[in-house]
């Protein structure tokens, strides 16, 4: 009989104990998959939401605009550039936008905020969260018109309603203060106080006129990707199409530094909690194998008396930990699959736990219904780490089995 077959039979000597240990490994897989899946879903969701409220997954802008975003830093021939970039593999869409600061005033009050000037013919609900979340009215259709879409909080502050007048004041390319009148065509509500109370959508050509921009000038080109995880690779590719003396391509990590930082910190704390889960799994496997080794001291003594070497004994116990790990992974996949399916389809609704109507983290909208998203490489990593830890937990018992002098074991016979 081969050692690996003997190990398999040994593992099933104590069925209940094996199943309990395998279940703890499986539970570890479930926890790890759940935590990682939820985090990845949430991160992806936040990155997409953030990208669709302004900068895109990749931002093409004038050199230095990201550090000091002033309206004099602008890129030209944006329509031509857009046509070029949109044909690139992995690029889902690209929108020419002007982003800047302004004062917004109604008959009753004025407040400071940001404006996002857009070309309505380029924007879609899919890639513009604000348009998707318009609760009253519609987005303006004329890019040179007087329409404006405001957040519901801003509308409240300025006592604005559909069709009401709004004056926005900003500085043009020459540093002169300029103003324009607009009429509210729509009101959006994202649930993020910062956005709803301070961001306004304006028609791009009208803003170009106000700022003194040329016809195809803008502050940025927001590039949306099919898969945000490929942002770094695509950024490199897109950079080759740019005049790098004047233009730069940045990923959401550069333009949304707060979000990127939050994801990094959250990811690190997620790793720590997973490390604790991993330690618990390891302790379980170590305990099981150590008990199993101590119980079989006599048997190991007999095996060594019959000529089994310490090395062969080490291999035998290590094979047992391999089997235990594999059984644990099978249990893990069995219990995780339906749970993953449930979370993927229905998700967990955390809206009751979020305060008021503000569903934001680091100023970015989060979906209160948390689902899961695992990538193949993540699954492979989770299973490999759990498998490796379970096997490593068997090293000490395996080493110990081979170190017990046969005479010590046989004295008990």
């Amino acid at each position, binding site marked *: 009989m081969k050692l690996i077959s003997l190990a398999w039979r040994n593992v099933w*000597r104590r069925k209940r104990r094996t199943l309990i240990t395998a279940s703890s490994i499986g539970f570890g897989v479930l926890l790890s998959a759940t935590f990682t899946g939820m985090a990845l879903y949430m991160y992806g969701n936040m990155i997409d939401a953030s990208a669709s409220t302004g900068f895109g997954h990749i931002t093409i802008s004038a050199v230095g605009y990201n550090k000091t975003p002033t309206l004099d830093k602008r890129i030209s021939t944006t329509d031509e550039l857009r046509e070029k970039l949109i044909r690139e593999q992995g690029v889902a869409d690209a929108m020419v936008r002007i982003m800047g600061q302004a004062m917004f005033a109604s008959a009753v009050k004025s407040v400071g905020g940001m404006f996002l000037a857009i070309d309505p013919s380029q924007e879609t609900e899919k890639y513009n969260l604000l348009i998707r979340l318009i609760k009253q009215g519609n987005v303006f259709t004329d890019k040179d018109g007087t329409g404006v879409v405001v957040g519901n909080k801003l509308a409240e502050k300025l006592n604005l309603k559909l069709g009401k007048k709004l004056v926005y004041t900003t500085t043009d390319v020459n540093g002169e203060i300029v103003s324009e009148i607009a009429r509210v065509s729509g009101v959006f509500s994202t649930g993020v106080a910062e956005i709803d109370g301070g961001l306004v959508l304006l028609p791009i050509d009208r803003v170009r006129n106000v700022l003194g921009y040329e016809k195809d000038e803008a502050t940025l080109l927001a590039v949306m990707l099919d898969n945000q995880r490929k942002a770094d690779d695509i950024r490199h590719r897109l950079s080759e199409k740019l005049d790098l003396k004047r233009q730069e391509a940045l990923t959401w990590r550069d333009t949304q530094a707060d979000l990127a930082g939050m994801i990094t910190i959250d990811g690190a704390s997620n790793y720590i909690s997973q490390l604790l889960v991993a330690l618990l799994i390891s302790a379980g496997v170590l305990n099981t194998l150590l008990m199993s080794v101590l119980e079989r001291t006599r*048997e190991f003594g007999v095996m060594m008396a*019959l000529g089994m070497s310490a*090395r062969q004994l080490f291999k035998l116990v290590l094979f047992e930990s391999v089997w235990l790990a594999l059984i644990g992974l099978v249990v893990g996949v069995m219990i995780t699959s339906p749970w993953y399916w449930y979370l993927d389809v229905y998700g967990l609704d955390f809206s009751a736990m979020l305060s008021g109507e503000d569903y934001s983290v680091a100023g970015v909208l989060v979906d209160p219904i948390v689902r899961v998203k695992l990538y193949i490489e993540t699954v492979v990593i989770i299973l490999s780490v759990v498998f490796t830890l379970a096997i490593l937990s068997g090293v000490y018992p395996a080493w110990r089995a081979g170190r017990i002098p*046969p005479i010590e074991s*046989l004295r008990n016979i």
Partner: protein
Amino acid sequence: MAGEVHTNNPAIKDIVRLESVSKVYQQGQLEVRAVDNVSLEIDTGDFCALCGPSGSGKTTVLNMIGGLDVPSSGQVWLENHNLARLSRSELASIRRDRIGFVFQAYNLIPVMTAYENAEFVLRLQGVPESECHEQVMMILDEVGLKGMEHRRPDEMSGGQQQRVAIARAIVTRPAIVLADEPTANVDSATADALLDLMQKLNQEDGVSFLFSTHDQRVMDRARRLIRLRDGRIESDEARR
């Protein structure tokens, strides 16, 4: 093999040689001399019994010959090897290839069938499965277990289990079988049958046996009887 070659007698007829071997155990403050200056030789083809009351040192002598225990002083030679000079892995190889063990409590591996238990040492030796099969079936037939090869230890009687243990001990054709009280846990009819079997293996196949026993039946059949008392050889008589 790092063990010294026994140069005094190149045409060795003794498989085992103990030279002034003593074994002292420390029990708390007390020093227990389990084996005291024992010298003896076991020849090829011997059917020899070490007898004496409990605590006389029988099992300790057997363990030292089997390389399971180390003498406090003196030397143990097995064939050409001074066991004190061998590493742990070399001792494991000697036990695997040159010694067969039969224990009082059978000590079969519970998750293995009779066939697999008998095959175990051959597999440790790296003998391919196909070659093992013929040898194992032959041995099981020889010990009277034909048809029981698929039974696990808990499906066999004590006598049957001890037969499997004997099959496991002799399947590799070792230089010597060390049997520690092999009849202690079986009824007298089974004990006689087991002794018949071991006697047959000794006479027909030339397998050397060294028993530790205080069973009169074993002593009656032994061709050489070594009596131990308080760790010393009291008498060493050749019989029949």
